[in-house]
C-alpha cells in the first residue's frame, strides 16, 4: 500500500519533470539543452539533492534538522579558512567538511538523546551556535576558490557533459537508498521512526537510531558543503543560508511521510529537480528570486493537502473493500 502510493508520487513527479523540461527547453529556444545549459542545470542540482536527503533521514526517524544550512555553512567555512590561511593541502581540506558535518550531526543526536529535549529546539539551538561559528570563521570576507584549485577543478569536471559533482550527489542518493533498504541499521532506523514503541519491544535501541539519523544527516550536509566548496567561486557567510527551506521541500514533495518511518529517495531527488526547474524558469524569464520561494511554498501546501485527500480516499476504499468481504453489519458501518 505504502509502496504503491510512493510509486504514484514518483510517476507524477517524473511527468512534471519531463513536461517542465520540454516547456522550458522550448521557452529558452533550446538553450537548456546546449552543453552549457545542461552543465549549469546539473551543477546546481547537486546541493538541493544532498540537503533534501539530509533532511529526509531525520524526518524518517521522526526528527527534524533545522541546522542543515548551518552545518553545511560552518563545514565549508572551516575548510576554506584552513586551506586559505593555514595552507592545509586541498586533499586533506576536502575531508574537513565531511568530518565537521558528521561531528555536528553526532552532537545533535547526542543532545537529543541525552537531554530528551525536543529535536526541533535542539537543532534550532545548534543552528544558532553554528551560524555564530561560521560568522566568526569567515566574518565579512569571501575566501576565494583560488586557494583550492584542485578541488575547483573537480567542481568543473564533467563526465559525458554531466558535472561530476552531480554524479557524486546521485551516488550519495544510491547509497542512502541501499542503506535504508538492505542494511540492518537502516531497517532499524525506519522501524524507530514508524513506531518507537513497537521498535523498542523488538529490542531496537531508538536512541541509537536517532543518533545514527542525525549523524548521517550531518554527514550529508558535509558532502553538500564539499560540493559547494568545489562549485562556488568562493566561500563566505552566506553559504548554507538558503538551504533550510529547500531541504524540507524536497522530501515533502517527494512523498516522505512526516510522521516518520518512510524514505523516498527517488521522490526526494525528483522533487529537488522540480525545484531546480522552477529556479531555472525564474532565471529564464528574469523574475525576482523571491518568486521561487512563493512557488515552492504553494507547491508544498498543495502537496500536503493532496496527500491528505489521497489518504482519506484510500481509507474509504479500504473501508469499502472490507465491507464487501464482511457481513451486512459492517456494510452499514462503512456506508456511514
Amino acid at each position: 500500500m505504502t509502496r504503491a502510493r510512493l510509486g504514484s508520487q514518483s510517476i507524477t513527479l517524473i511527468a512534471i519533470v519531463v513536461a517542465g523540461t520540454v516547456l522550458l527547453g522550448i521557452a529558452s529556444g533550446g538553450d537548456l539543452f546546449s552543453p552549457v545549459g545542461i552543465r549549469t542545470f546539473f551543477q546546481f542540482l547537486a546541493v538541493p539533492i544532498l540537503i533534501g536527503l539530509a533532511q529526509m533521514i531525520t524526518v524518517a526517524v521522526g526528527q527534524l534538522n533545522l541546522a542543515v544550512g548551518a552545518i553545511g555553512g560552518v563545514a565549508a567555512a572551516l575548510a576554506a579558512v584552513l586551506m586559505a590561511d593555514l595552507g592545509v593541502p586541498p586533499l586533506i581540506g576536502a575531508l574537513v567538511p565531511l568530518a565537521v558535518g558528521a561531528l555536528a550531526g553526532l552532537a545533535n543526536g547526542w543532545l537529543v538523546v541525552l537531554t530528551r529535549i525536543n529535536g526541533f529546539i535542539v537543532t534550532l539551538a545548534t543552528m544558532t551556535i553554528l551560524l555564530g561559528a561560521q560568522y566568526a570563521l569567515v566574518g565579512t570576507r569571501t575566501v576565494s576558490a583560488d586557494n583550492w584549485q584542485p578541488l575547483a577543478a573537480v567542481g568543473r569536471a564533467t563526465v559525458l557533459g554531466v558535472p561530476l559533482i552531480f554524479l557524486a550527489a546521485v551516488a550519495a542518493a544510491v547509497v542512502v537508498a541501499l542503506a535504508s533498504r538492505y542494511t540492518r541499521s537502516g531497517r532499524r532506523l525506519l522501524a524507530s521512526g514508524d513506531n518507537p514503541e513497537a521498535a523498542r519491544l523488538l529490542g531496537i535501541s531508538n536512541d541509537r537510531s536517532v543518533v545514527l539519523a542525525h549523524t548521517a544527516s550531518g554527514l550529508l550536509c558535509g558532502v553538500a558543503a564539499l560540493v559547494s566548496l568545489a562549485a562556488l567561486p568562493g566561500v563566505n557567510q552566506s553559504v548554507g543560508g538558503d538551504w533550510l527551506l529547500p531541504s524540507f521541500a524536497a522530501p515533502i514533495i517527494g512523498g516522505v511521510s512526516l510522521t516518520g518511518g518512510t524514505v523516498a529517495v527517488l521522490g526526494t531527488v525528483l522533487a529537488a529537480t522540480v525545484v531546480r526547474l522552477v529556479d531555472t524558469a525564474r532565471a529564464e524569464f528574469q523574475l525576482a528570486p523571491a518568486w521561487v520561494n512563493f512557488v515552492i511554498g504553494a507547491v508544498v501546501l498543495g502537496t500536503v493537502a493532496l496527500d491528505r485527500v489521497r489518504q482519506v480516499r484510500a481509507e474509504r476504499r479500504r473501508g469499502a473493500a472490507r465491507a464487501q468481504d464482511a457481513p451486512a453489519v459492517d456494510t452499514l458501518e462503512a456506508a456511514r
Partner: protein
Amino acid sequence: MSDRPAVVRWLATPRFVLIAIIVVLVAVLTAVKPSFLNGAFVLAPLITSITVFTVVGLAQMMVLSIGHMNIAVGQMAAFGAMASGISFDLFALPLAAGLLLGLVAGAAIGALTGWIIARTGVNSFIVTLAMSFALLGLVPTVYSALSTGSAFVVKPEGFDLLGRSSFSSVCLAGWCGPAAIPLMVVPVLVVMALVGLLYQRTRWGRELLLTGSNVTAAELSGIPTARRIVMAHTLSGTLAALAGILLATSIGSFTPSIGDEFMLQSFVGPILGGTLLAGGYVSVVGTFLGITLTLVIRKGLELFGVGIETLNVLLGVILLVALSADRVREIRLRRGRAPGSAPGRPSGSTPDRTPDAEEVPA
C-alpha cells in the same frame, strides 16, 4: 510539594530564576559600564526592542499553547506591516485605520494557516514552513511592485509618536516622564494584559490550553478543537502583524526585511519563560522575562563591543542549558508532586505530558 507555602513554590518557577538573572546581569553591567543606564541612547532602544519582541514571543506562545508552532511568525509580521505600509503609502489612510488594516491582514493570513492545519490535519510545522516560503516570495515582490526603493516611507500623523517618542514628551504640570521609557510600552502592556486575561479568565483560553494538553480529551469533552486551532493561529498572526508594525514605526519605514530576526527569538522567549512546547501551559510574564533576558545580554555584549557571532553562540547555549535545567526541574517535580494538579496554574509544569513526547522516541 503542594503543602509548601506559595512563596517557596514561586521561587521554583522559571520566572523567579529569570528575574534573578536579569537583576544580577543589570547590576553587573551597570557596575562595569555605567553608560548602560544612559536613558535616551541605551535604555530606550533596549526597551523598545523588548516591547517589540515580547509581542513576537506572545505570537509564538499563542500557537505553542495548543502544541503547534508558527515558523512563519516573521513572515506574517512582514505581511501585516506590508498591509499597513500600503494603506499609508498608497491610500493615505490615518494611523488608526492603517494599523487596523495591518492587524486584519495578519489575522487573515493566520486564520488561513490555522484553517489549512485544522482541515488537513497536517503538522503545523510543515504548513507554517510552507506559508513562510510563500510569504517570503510574496512580500518582496509586492514591495518592489508598489514602492520605489523597496520601502513604504509615508508616515501618517502620530506615527513617530508611537514608534519613536518616549515619556519625556508626556508632560504634566511641568514634570515630564523619563526619556528611557518609550511610549510603545503602553499598547504592549495592554496587549500582554489582554493575552493574560484570555488564558486566565476566559473559557476560550482554557479551551485552548486543554486542546494543547490533550486534543482527543478536549474533543471528547465537547470543545470545538478545530475552531480553537484556527483561533490560536489567527491570534498568532494578529500579534505577529502587530510586532511587525511596531518594529516599522520604531525604524521609521516599512521594508520587506521586517521580521527576519523574529523566528529564533519567538521561540527563545516563551521557552525560557516556561511555556511547554507540547502545549497546555503558557506564561505571559515568563515570555516577557525570557525576551528581556536575551535582549539585556545582547545589549550588554554590544556595549562591550562583542560581535553578533558571539551573541548567536551564546543564545544557542542559553537555550540548551535552560532546557536541560528545565528537564531536571521537571523530573524532580514529577517525583515530588501528587498527580492531579491543574494545567495552567503558576506551579503547573504538568508532568503528565513532557515536551519531547512527540519528537523523541523514548
